[in-house]
């Protein structure tokens, strides 16, 4: 464990040095991310300025929901954006190199890159969360701010683990992009900006059990907004970190199985 951490940190250092070579992307990345998210929020604003609330959620509550998602997503994007590109790592032979080295392949893969884009997400989401807190007139006890940090990290792990689990199928088919893209639709197409219980049981169960993206923002934000007693399954609001750990375990198991299959079937 300690050994893996040392290797990971050394690799992250190299990854940061790599990024510093491309400073211009930093500014463009942050501006781009701001505009992209502003566009989505603007659409929500248009809708809610006409309809006042969506299934009992006001505009600022939706803003809170959205930016909880964005915060977790941003953290995962900074450190783990490249897990979506496993397919490319395999096709280009970078993964074979990883296997010719004595360190844990997952540690080597995760430590390979860091990314600027997520930085914009994190900055924007923190700013918008503060704004939402203010506009909703919230007044949390002190420990809840600590819990928010725990949730931000667990959201990042939830998204990262689900993606890793799916992307590990690259080892079997070397074409996982479509699978990951379709699955992540449940994340940015459903969970991101809508309160999931408005979609009915089937879709709610999918994003709670099968692809539990709802633990990135929907369930955790219930307690922050004082809604845990008014919606079904509100008690799940406390379980996001547990879900994150279970997912991480499943993802690592799938990853290991994938490598085994890759080594015996090749590509």
């Amino acid at each position, binding site marked *: 464990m300690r*050994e893996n951490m*040392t*290797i990971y940190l*050394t*690799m992250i*250092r*190299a990854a940061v*040095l*790599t990024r510093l*070579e*491309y400073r211009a992307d930093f500014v463009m990345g942050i501006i781009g991310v701001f505009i992209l998210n502003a566009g989505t929020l603007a659409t929500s604003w248009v809708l809610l300025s006409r309809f006042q609330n969506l299934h009992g959620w006001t505009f600022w509550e939706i803003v809170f929901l959205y930016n909880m998602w964005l915060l977790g997503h941003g953290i995962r994007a900074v450190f783990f954006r490249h897990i979506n590109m496993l397919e490319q790592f395999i096709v*280009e*032979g*970078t993964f*074979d*190199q990883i*296997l*010719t*080295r*004595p*360190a844990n392949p997952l540690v*080597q893969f995760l430590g390979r890159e860091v990314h600027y884009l997520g930085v914009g997400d994190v900055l924007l989401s923190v700013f918008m969360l503060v704004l939402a807190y203010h506009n909703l007139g919230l007044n949390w006890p002190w420990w809840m701010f600590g819990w928010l940090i725990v949730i931000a990290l667990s959201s990042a792990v939830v998204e990262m683990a689900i993606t890793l689990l799916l992307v590990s199928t690259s080892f079997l088919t070397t074409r996982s992009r479509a699978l990951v893209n379709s699955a992540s639709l449940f994340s940015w197409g459903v969970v991101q900006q809508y309160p999931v219980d408005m979609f009915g049981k089937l879709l709610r169960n999918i994003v709670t059990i099968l692809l539990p993206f709802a633990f990135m923002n929907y369930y955790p934000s219930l307690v922050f907004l004082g809604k845990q007693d008014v919606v079904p399954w509100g008690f799940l609001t406390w379980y996001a970190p547990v879900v994150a750990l279970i997912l991480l375990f499943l993802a690592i198991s799938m990853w290991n199985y994938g490598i085994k299959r890759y*080594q*015996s*079937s*090749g590509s």
Partner: protein
Amino acid sequence: MALIEVNHLRKEFKRIIPKTGFLSGIRNLWNTDTHTHVAVDDISFKVEEGELLGYIGPNGAGKSTSIKMLTGILVPTSGDVKIAGLTPWKDRRAHTQNIGVVFGQKTQLWWDIPVIESFRVLKTIYKIPDELYTKNLNQFRELLELDQFENTPVRQLSLGQRMRADLAAALLHDPKILFLDEPTIGVDVLAKERLRTFIKEINRTRGVTVLLTTHDMQDIEKLCHRMAIIDDGNILYDGSIDALKSKFGNERTLVIELDDAPYRLNLPGTRILREEGTRVWLAFNRDQFSASDIMMRVAEHHTIRDLTVEEPEIESIVREIYEGSHSGRKREDEHVPVLDLQ
């Protein structure tokens, strides 16, 4: 016991057969036909410690698949490999400490950061003690003149410099065995010579066993004591280069410079390859004639100003072996013999 022992190694892949013809794009949507492709059929060989083995074959012969099994990347369908007592794919992590790998086509260094930074990462990954790291680094600086470019990002290096950096990176942890896949590809003549000298040097001074794949026969001739030729997943030849030449290269070429050109003779047992100005190239079988026989018979009719005997080029011999194996396969069910001359 030999350092590397490969026994009846075999590797099959399953591939989907794409449909062609009418509406193929749509029919491929539910296509599940597969066929089994044998990349490596049945390969056995041994490598002793300190050997420098050239491993050659045309593209798609099974070279890189077998290297991938030897380096622990792939698990074979059947067969066994023991390298320094370990099975590469079972004891992968211990095994990787024993080997260094260089793929000429793709650097193993971090593309955008200075070479020395990549070395630092590798130092951590391979858990290289400080003392050894400093010692090795200093030695490579001297042998490969790394100091010229160790603070330059890899993407700005010339191909020759990049290969030097890659070689140093692969050797930092003192591996017993070095796998080199096309180490001189695309590199200019001078840089090639330098890389070869270095490979020879570390083989001699450190006793590193080298397994080298290449398309450049000069690499083989200048570096290797021994070569294995692989095609269609089987070894066609395994032995020393001299033995290969004497077995297959029994044709010699006599280059004669005449005072009274043009050449007018038609000697039995010789073949005119080329005439140019006052010079003529005569091919003959050296098992039937000696060079002096031919020289004397030419001298009966011509005035010879100068003459040399040319050795056959290894490249043409190898080409003959490939062609031989292909024509052999056309006669169905006939086994292509493995030629072992040791």
